[in-house]
């Protein structure tokens, strides 16, 4: 199976499962399960990007929650800030003319004029991409532990900034975020009336991301990434532009995380600084690890299961322990993940070689 139809089997199976679950839930009057499945779907976007970055390109990132937060906060900020005070200024009039401004009631009896959620979402994702691009340069000059700590440091700084700044609501975050209208008649929002539609929309985005990433992996880019992961010196010697590829993958992972942040923020109607916390980043990493580092399918299955259970409070007070323990157990006993290597024997052989090479070379 090649070309644009790679991975169609899993995708079809996933789509079928998504539909089956919805039908089962509606029939059993347990539609509320779809809420947590929708939220799990959003977090899958972060996980998929991280799987690409960590699994295929071999670059650790302990700061993906930072990009999720950047996406979410920028979208929330832009859709809750009243711009009416600037209505005599030129930028306002330009935006107004371009139909990019929306006026709505602010829940306290007044009105609020803010940027259209679409524009805000776009700006949010673009900001995250821009920041990722800026950060990638210095970060990728590092290796191994230093690289991991640098990404961890990035995540912590983002967390501190959102926690400290009054513009972003400080410790309470931003609330009253309006729905994000995707098409006429459908908006990303947590309201019970459109729960099923939102569920399908979220999973459609996941399927789209999965399709895109699977094709990326099968293409020349994917082979270059695996080469970089295997041995940077070897890859460089055959002309792979290492720095450029690492940066692009980092930015792509950041874009996916930011997109997840935007959608989740509109769905939940708000965002808080805990979304950028170190534990959130560690959870994403744990899910990638347990799904099998370079295994999108594993990441989807395990990510959905673990996030869903966590959101339902299934793990009770042992929540963090579960994720930390899973990360530990996976890395000790099954670094290839629990759902099994999905890439076939060829890449498994490559992995074997990578493991042997990794300690001799300077690659991460």
């Amino acid at each position: 199976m090649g070309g644009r139809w790679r991975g169609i089997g899993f995708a079809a199976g996933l789509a079928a499962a998504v539909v089956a679950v919805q039908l089962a839930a509606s029939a059993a009057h347990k539609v509320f399960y779809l809420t947590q499945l929708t939220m799990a779907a959003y977090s899958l976007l972060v996980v998929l990007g991280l799987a690409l970055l960590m699994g295929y390109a071999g670059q650790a990132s302990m700061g993906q929650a930072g990009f999720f937060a950047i996406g979410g906060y920028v979208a929330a900020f832009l859709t809750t800030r009243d711009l009416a005070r600037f209505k005599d200024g030129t930028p306002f009039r330009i935006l107004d003319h371009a139909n990019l401004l929306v006026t709505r009631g602010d829940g306290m009896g007044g009105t609020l004029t803010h940027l259209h959620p679409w524009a805000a979402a776009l700006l949010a994702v673009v900001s995250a991409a821009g920041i990722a691009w800026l950060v990638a340069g210095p970060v990728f000059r590092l290796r191994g532990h230093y690289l991991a700590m640098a990404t961890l440091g990035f995540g912590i700084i983002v967390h501190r900034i959102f926690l400290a700044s009054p513009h972003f609501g400080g410790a309470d975050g931003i609330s009253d975020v309006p729905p994000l209208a995707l098409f006429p008649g459908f908006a990303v929002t947590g309201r019970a009336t459109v729960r099923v539609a939102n569920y399908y929309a979220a999973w459609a985005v996941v399927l789209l991301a999965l399709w895109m990433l699977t094709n990326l992996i099968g293409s020349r880019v994917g082979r270059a990434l695996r080469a970089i992961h295997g041995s940077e010196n070897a890859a460089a010697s055959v002309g792979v532009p290492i720095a450029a590829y690492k940066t692009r993958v980092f930015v792509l992972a950041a874009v996916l995380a930011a997109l997840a942040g935007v959608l989740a923020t509109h769905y939940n109607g708000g965002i808080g600084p805990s979304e950028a916390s170190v534990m959130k980043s560690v959870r994403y990493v744990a899910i990638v690890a347990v799904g099998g580092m370079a295994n999108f399918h594993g990441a989807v299955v395990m990510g959905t299961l673990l996030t869903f259970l966590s959101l339902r409070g299934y793990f009770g007070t042992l929540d963090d322990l579960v994720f930390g323990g899973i990360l530990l157990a996976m890395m000790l006993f099954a670094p290839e993940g629990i759902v099994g290597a999905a890439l076939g024997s060829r890449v498994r052989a490559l992995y074997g070689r990578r493991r042997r090479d990794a300690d001799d070379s300077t690659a991460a």
Partner: protein
Amino acid sequence: MSGAAAAAVPGCAASMTSDILLQFCVAGVTYGVIYGVVAIGFTIIYNTTGIINFAQGEFLMLGAMTAVTLQRFVPLPAAILGAVAITMLVGAALEVLFIRWLTRPSVLRMIMITIGLSIVIREVALHVWDEKSHALPYFTGDAVSALTVAGAKISPQVLWVVGVCGAMVLLLGLFFHATPLGRQMRACASNRDAARLCGINARNMVTLSFVLSAGMGALAGCVVSPITFVQYDSGTALAIKGFTAAILGGLGSTAGAAAGGVVLGLLESFSVWFLPAAYKDAVAITVMLGVLFVRPTGILGNAEAARLRGH
């Protein structure tokens, strides 16, 4: 971050008098030596194994929490000794159970393992103890007793902290340079295969390095707990700052780690004067990122030596 109307421009309005300067120095050195001990712990393990042990901060937490529990039954010195011994056992257990049997793991895998360990230890501590803050009693005096030195107030506990940690660093240096075991560890650190050829049991050296790091961390945790209090999640922040101190001094050098710790402590302390205090915790991260991006080998590090070690 500073209040809108009423707060004055931080730091600049009043000038720093000598007693204020000294006060900030005292605060900086107090935390500096703690960061230094954590950094040394990182360095010892790193030197023998090439691993950054993200669970390093947890050793301090465990030492202090265990001592608090023990001192309900035995006098304070015995409680501290007991806590140090128990934490050393935990360190050894970590190495034997989780590190020793791994064959040629990749750096990424080791990072994940020690992060996982750190989280598991922390959450287990939460369920073994509780979510509250705990502290040992002040060794001498109490919370408000203070000696006045050149206008600055120094708590006797601070002298304990500096004294105990300083003594640990000196003893460690003596150990590495003057005892056969210590010299073996250093040999293992600079070239593991050659050391093995000389008959040094590399695996035991690794266990010893964990035991040493754990013990030093536990003692430091005990001696600083009356001032800072300790709770189940105290370890994480310390690990990050200790790592910063370690790389500031150049990863791999114990002297550098100690110096890096003191420098970081002073930077943090003085930052409160010149910047809004809200930024204090960003200082360590900023220093860490600065070192990583600008000079990963650290201020005292040797780029050549680092390259030889393969980084």
